């Protein structure tokens, strides 16, 4: 057999359901921990972050308006798709982190299970977090958690798949849309995850994946007034984290600090805000209404 020239994959961004190159056309080499060059990834800039936020904003209202049941099905579908490509992801993960291939497959399986876990939460978290409140008056008073809107995530640097799923699954399960800045040195599993999400009936723009330099792009996401939540879990540099928090403070934004941990319910609660409604129950009845 002749030596076939391998067709190598171009790792591109995932924005608004499409796979664009970076706006600037720049890319950067990605290597495994032992120095083997793996591929070139698109180097996202400020403008890619801007486009991603615009795509996430457009997608947010329709996504939050879908039934919880459908959101759960779509997340489950993403798990199905990931299961079908578990081998490819295990290989990419092993290349990216230098982990043992068998161990990497275990991590991929954990990521799949994590998706299924959050798929189950979509129609339950509102009942668990919200509820009817006892009030001293003729009111039916109830509280429901609602999505914040657009959440920007700086993904974990050393846990490029499971850590990423951990960050985005609870956010999108609750009806938010996300703009993710993938691990700077290990972005390839995240960019491949875009292909999984694109074939999972997940509407374009619900998850947007950018690869690039954290210190270059994150400040634009932190200061962006149309971003409602900021997850700094992947920011290792304390000075950068502080400056991002300061930039976020100029706008109305929920910030999750690096290192903060929690269980699934805490993570689901993270990107919601509570709406409490006072419904005048007695008045309608008293007025003889059909209510």
């Amino acid at each position, binding site marked *: 057999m002749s030596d076939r020239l391998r067709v190598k994959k171009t790792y591109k961004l995932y924005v608004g359901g499409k796979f664009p190159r970076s706006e600037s056309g720049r890319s950067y080499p990605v290597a495994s921990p032992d120095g083997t060059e793996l591929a070139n990834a698109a180097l996202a800039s400020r403008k890619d972050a*801007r486009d991603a936020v615009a795509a996430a*904003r457009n997608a947010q209202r329709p996504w939050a308006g879908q039934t919880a049941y459908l959101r759960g099905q779509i997340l489950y579908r993403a798990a199905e798709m990931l299961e079908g490509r578990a081998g490819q992801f295990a290989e990419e993960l092993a290349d990216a982190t230098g982990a043992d291939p068998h161990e990497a497959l275990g991590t991929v399986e954990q990521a799949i299970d994590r998706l299924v876990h959050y798929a189950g939460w979509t129609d339950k978290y509102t009942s668990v977090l919200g509820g009817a409140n006892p009030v001293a008056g003729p009111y039916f008073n109830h509280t429901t958690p609602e999505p914040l809107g657009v959440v920007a995530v700086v993904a974990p640097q050393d846990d490029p798949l499971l850590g990423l799923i951990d960050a985005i699954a609870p956010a999108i399960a609750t009806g938010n849309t996300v703009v993710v800045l993938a691990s700077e040195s290990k972005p390839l599993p995240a960019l491949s995850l875009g292909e999984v999400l694109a074939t999972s009936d997940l509407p374009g723009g619900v998850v947007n994946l950018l690869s690039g330099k954290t210190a270059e792009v994150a400040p*634009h996401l932190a*200061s*962006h*007034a*149309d*971003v409602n939540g900021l997850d700094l879990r992947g920011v290792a540099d304390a000075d950068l984290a502080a400056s991002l928090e300061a930039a976020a403070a*100029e706008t*109305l934004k929920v910030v999750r600090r690096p290192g903060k941990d929690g269980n699934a319910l805490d993570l689901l609660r993270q990107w919601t805000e509570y709406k409490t409604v006072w419904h005048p129950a007695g008045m309608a009845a008293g007025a003889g209404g059909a209510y």
Partner: protein
Amino acid sequence: MGSILSGAEAASLVRALPGVDAVGLEARAAGLSTRSVKTTSKAWAIDLAISMIDLTTLEGADTPGKVRSLAAKALRPDGDAPSTAAVCVYPSMVAVAKEALAGSGVLVASVATGFPAGQVPLDVRLADTESAVRAGADEIDMVINRGAFLAGDLERVFHEIKAVKAAAGDARLKVILETGELATYDDVRRASWLAMYAGADFIKTSTGKVGVNATLPVTLLMMQAVRDYRALTGVQVGVKPAGGIRNTKDAIKYLVTVNETLGDDWLRNEWFRFGASSLLNDLLMQRQKLKTGHYSGPDYVTVD
């Protein structure tokens, strides 16, 4: 200014106009779209664009309250941003808008003549115009009779525009060609000249109520028409693209085109307007971006 031409003269002049080089026109428009306008020039362009907006609400659901809030926004869009040029409403809302804008420099424009189709008898269209002027409209946005135009009855279109011009009195007359319904660039050129011969103070692309609204090539073509008309007659006519201009980038493309085609004489709101509603918020967000250095969002401008 009333026209000194007869209908037959105007129609024959218009019919003798040369055809439009469509490929050249679109290439020119595309070329003008590539200019990069940044920093202080961009800030200047944004403020200029804001001052050129006819802030428009033309819905069946318009209420006096909505028109008053629109007027308040036109007066003071955001912080130190300039006022818009005018608010544009239906005739029934002119009195409300006039009261809300009394004493300010912001004008009240009213659509009239059976907007948007114009498919009502001429006496009704003239009465519509007169009542809008009586209610205090400073500007009248009329629609041409596209049915007659497309049937080739240019004289009738000419006489109707003249009649509306007379009914509008001192109010400036903007003539809407509804270019989305005129099939060809040649028709747009003919309609532009016909409207100008009949005494239009402004020619306007669209009502915003059909599928195709203002496009840059069509607006460029109309700009060329007003430029040539002034060269021929000495009379300056304004241009107003309307509908479909939703963001700052588009607005700046139009301003570049005005500057390159018509020059400084038209680069103010007396002679160039944007018919728009959602454009203003995008301009304000871009303005905030330039001031604060970070991207703004729809939560930081008013909901209209």
